[in-house]
C-alpha cells in the first residue's frame, strides 16, 4: 500500500467538493430562511406543511365569511331595534286610544298614526344590505313584503296567508354559512318567522300562523281597526297581542344576538388558531437563523482548512530533495 499522487489529489478534490456542496446547501438555507426547499429536505414534514397551509387558507376564508355574516347580523339587529320601537309606540298609541275621553277625531288621528307605523314596519321588513333583502330567505333579490290588496277585516283568517294584510314573497330558508370546519351557523332570520309568526313557509301557500305567535302586520292592522271603531274590547285584545308581538320580536332578536356573539368569539378563536398554525408551519419549514449562520461559519472554516492543505501538499515533493 502506498500513497500515490492520484490518491492524494483525488482525496483533496473529493473533500473540497463535498465541503463546497454542503456550504452551498447551507447558504441556500441561510438565504431563503427555509429548511424545507425541496421534498427530500424533510419528506415527513410535507404532509403537515401542506395541511397547515390549507388550514391557514381556510381560516382566512372563514374569517372573511364571518366578517360578512357579522355585517349582516349588525344590520339585522339595527332593523330589529327599529321594529322594537315601532311596537312600543303602537302600544302607547293603543293605550292612549283606549281612554274614553278622546273624541272620535283624536282617535282617527291615532289610527292614522298606527297606519303610518305599519308602513314604517313594512319598510323595516323590506330592509336590505348590499342590494339584498335581509328578511327574504333565499329570495334575496325580490322585495319580500307588500300590502295585500285582497285583505278585508272580515275575511281575515290566521290559517290562510292569502287573507293577511301583508303578503310575503320570500321563502322560509335562513342563510347558513360555514364559520369553521364543519360548523354551520344560521346568520339571518326569515321574514315569515320574524314578522308573520310562521316558522315554516310554503310557496305557494297556504300558510298559517303558529299557535301562540303573532303576525306583526295583522296586529297593527287590527289595532288600527279597533281604534277607528272605538272597539274597547278590541283595543284591550290588541294591547295584549301587541305586547306578545313585541315579545316575539325581542326573543328572535336575542337569538340573533347570541349567534352574533358566537360568530364574534369564533372570529377571535380562529385568529388565535391562525397564529398557532403559523407557528407550526414555521417550525416545519423555517430554518433556525442562528443555527444556519453558525453552520455556515463552521463550514467556511472547514473550506479554508481544506484549501490551505491543498496548497501545502503541492509544495512537498521528493524532487526538491534529490
Amino acid at each position, binding site marked *: *500500500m*502506498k*500513497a*500515490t*499522487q*492520484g*490518491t492524494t489529489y*483525488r*482525496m483533496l478534490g*473529493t473533500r473540497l467538493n463535498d465541503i463546497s456542496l454542503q456550504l452551498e446547501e447551507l447558504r441556500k438555507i441561510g438565504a431563503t430562511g427555509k429548511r*424545507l*426547499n*425541496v*421534498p*427530500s*429536505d*424533510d*419528506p*415527513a414534514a*410535507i*404532509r403537515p*406543511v*401542506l*395541511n397547515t*397551509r*390549507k388550514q391557514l*387558507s*381556510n381560516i382566512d*376564508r372563514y374569517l*372573511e*365569511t364571518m366578517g*360578512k*355574516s357579522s355585517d349582516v347580523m349588525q344590520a339585522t339587529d339595527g332593523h330589529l331595534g327599529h321594529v322594537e320601537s315601532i311596537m312600543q309606540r303602537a302600544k302607547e298609541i293603543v293605550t292612549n286610544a283606549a281612554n274614553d275621553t278622546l273624541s272620535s277625531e283624536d282617535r282617527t288621528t291615532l289610527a292614522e298614526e298606527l297606519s303610518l307605523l305599519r308602513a314604517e314596519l313594512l319598510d323595516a321588513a323590506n330592509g336590505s344590505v348590499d342590494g*339584498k333583502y335581509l328578511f*327574504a*330567505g*333565499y*329570495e*334575496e*333579490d325580490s322585495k319580500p313584503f307588500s300590502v295585500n290588496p285582497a285583505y278585508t277585516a272580515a275575511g281575515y283568517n290566521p290559517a290562510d296567508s292569502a287573507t293577511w294584510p301583508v303578503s310575503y314573497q320570500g*321563502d322560509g*330558508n335562513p*342563510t*347558513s*354559512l*360555514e364559520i369553521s*370546519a*364543519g360548523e*354551520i351557523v344560521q346568520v339571518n332570520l326569515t321574514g315569515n318567522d320574524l314578522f308573520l309568526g310562521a316558522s315554516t313557509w310554503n*310557496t305557494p301557500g297556504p300558510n298559517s300562523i303558529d299557535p301562540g305567535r303573532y303576525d306583526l302586520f295583522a296586529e297593527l292592522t287590527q289595532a288600527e281597526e279597533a281604534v277607528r271603531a272605538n272597539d274597547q274590547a278590541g283595543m284591550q285584545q290588541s294591547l295584549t297581542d301587541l305586547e306578545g308581538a313585541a315579545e316575539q320580536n325581542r326573543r328572535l332578536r336575542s337569538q340573533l344576538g347570541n349567534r352574533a356573539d358566537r360568530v364574534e368569539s369564533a372570529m377571535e378563536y380562529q385568529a388565535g388558531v391562525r397564529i398557532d398554525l403559523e407557528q407550526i408551519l414555521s417550525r416545519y*419549514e423555517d430554518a433556525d437563523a442562528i443555527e444556519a449562520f453558525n453552520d455556515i461559519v463552521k463550514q467556511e472554516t472547514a473550506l479554508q482548512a481544506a484549501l490551505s492543505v491543498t496548497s501545502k501538499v503541492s509544495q512537498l*515533493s*521528493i*524532487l526538491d530533495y*534529490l
Partner: protein
Amino acid sequence: MTSLLNALNAGKTSLLTNQKSIEIVGNNIANVNTEGYSRQRAELMQIPAVNFNDFFIGQGVTVSNVSRDYSSFITRQLQSKTIDYGEESGRSGPLTELERIFNVTENNLASQINDFFDAWQELTANPSGQVERDMVIQRGQLLGDAFANISNELDTLTQNMNTEITGEVEYLNEKISEIAKLNDRIRLVEVTGQTANAARDQRDLIVQELSETLGVKTYTDNQGMLAVQLPGGMPLVQGNMAATISTVLTGGNVNLQVNIAGSALNVTSANLGGKMKGMFEMRDTFIAGLRADLDTLAVDLTSAVNAEHVNGYGSDGLTGRVFFDDISALPPGSVPSRNIRVHLTDSSQVAAAGNPAAAPGDNENALTIASLEVTHKVGTTNDTFDNFFSQIVATVGIEAARNELALGGAQDATVQLQNLRDGYSGVSLEEEMIDLIQYQRGFESSAKFLATVDEMMNALLQLKG
C-alpha cells in the same frame, strides 16, 4: 576457462538491463496521471550460470518480463461498487427533476386545490354573485391546467430519459466492440508468453465504464479473453465476437434489444444493472406510479365534485349538470390528469342552489361542494385531496432523500476503492524516483565495471610491448 570477454558480456547485459529498467520507470512516470494505468515493473532474472571446471559462474542479467502491479480482487470490488454507483446516479437526474415538478413551494397543485374549494366557499357567502360564480369556473379551469401541467412535465421528463438512453446506446456499442478487439489483441500478444499490459489496463477501464452504465458481469477464459454479460446472462462479448445493442420503441418508450448471432433479444429492466437499470426503473415503475396516483386524484376529485354538482340547481333553475367533463371512463390512451375541463359554459349553470326554486340566496349545494375539501376521502384511502397529493410529494421526497444518501455512500465507496487500487497499482512518484536512483547507480556501476575490464584488457595488450 574464464575470459575477460565473458566479463565484458556480463557488463553489457547489466547496462542493457538497467537501461531497460530506467525506461520502464520513465514510462511509469509518464503515466502518473493516466486513468486505469497499472504500474509496470521489470522482472529481472540472472542469465543461467555456465559451468567452468565445476564452478558455476553467472553470465549477467536480463529482463525476463515486464509485469504490472495488479490485484483482480480490488478490480472486481471496484467493478461491483461502480455498478451500485451507476444505478443510483441513473436515478438521481430524474429525481432532481421530480422534486421540481412535485415541489413544496406555495404554488403547487395542493394550493390550486385549496383555491378551487376556496372559490366555492366564497360562493356560499354570496351565491348569486356573478363574480363569485365566474371565479368558481375559472378556478376549476386553473385546477385542470395545474393537473395538465404536471402531467406534461412528467411526459417531458420521460421523453428526456428516452433521449438519454438512446444517446447512451451508441457509446455502449463502441465500448462493447472495443472489448472484443482488445480480447483479440491480448490473445495474440499473450500466446507468445508476453503480458499485454497496456491492452489489459485499457480493457479494465472500459469494463468499469460498462459496469457503471450496464452493470455487466465478466469472466476470463483460459486465453485471457474476457466474456462480458448483462446481469441477466445475455452475452455482450464472447471471445472476439461483440453483440450490438439497439433501441426499440414500445408504447412511446425506448427499450433495449441485444442483437447477437442474427437474433434480437429484448432486455427488461431485470436484465440490466447500473445506470440503465436505475433509469428504466425510474421511468417504468416510479414515474409510472406517480402518474397513476395523479390520475387517481384527478378522476376522484372531478367525480366527487360532479356527484354533488348534478344534485344542485343553476341560477337558471336547471339541474343534473356536471361541473367537470367526466374523465372516469376515458378511451384507452387518454390520460385523465390531462383532460380535466370545466363542463359548464356559463356562470348561470353553476349549481350553488340546493332547491328547485334556485333562489338567488340558496347556497346549500355550494356549502356541500365546499365541504368536500375536508370531508371527502380519495378512493379507498383515508386522505383528503390535498393529503393525497402531499402523499405523492412525500413519496418523491423519500426516494430523493434515499437516493442522495445511497449515491453519496456509493461515491465514497468507489473513491475508497479507487484509492485502494492506486495504493496497489498506481504510480507513486517517490517510489519511481528511488527506483530511478537505484537503476542509475546500477548502470553507473556496470559502466565502471566495463571500464575496469577495459583497463585490464589494455594491461594485457601492453604485455607484448
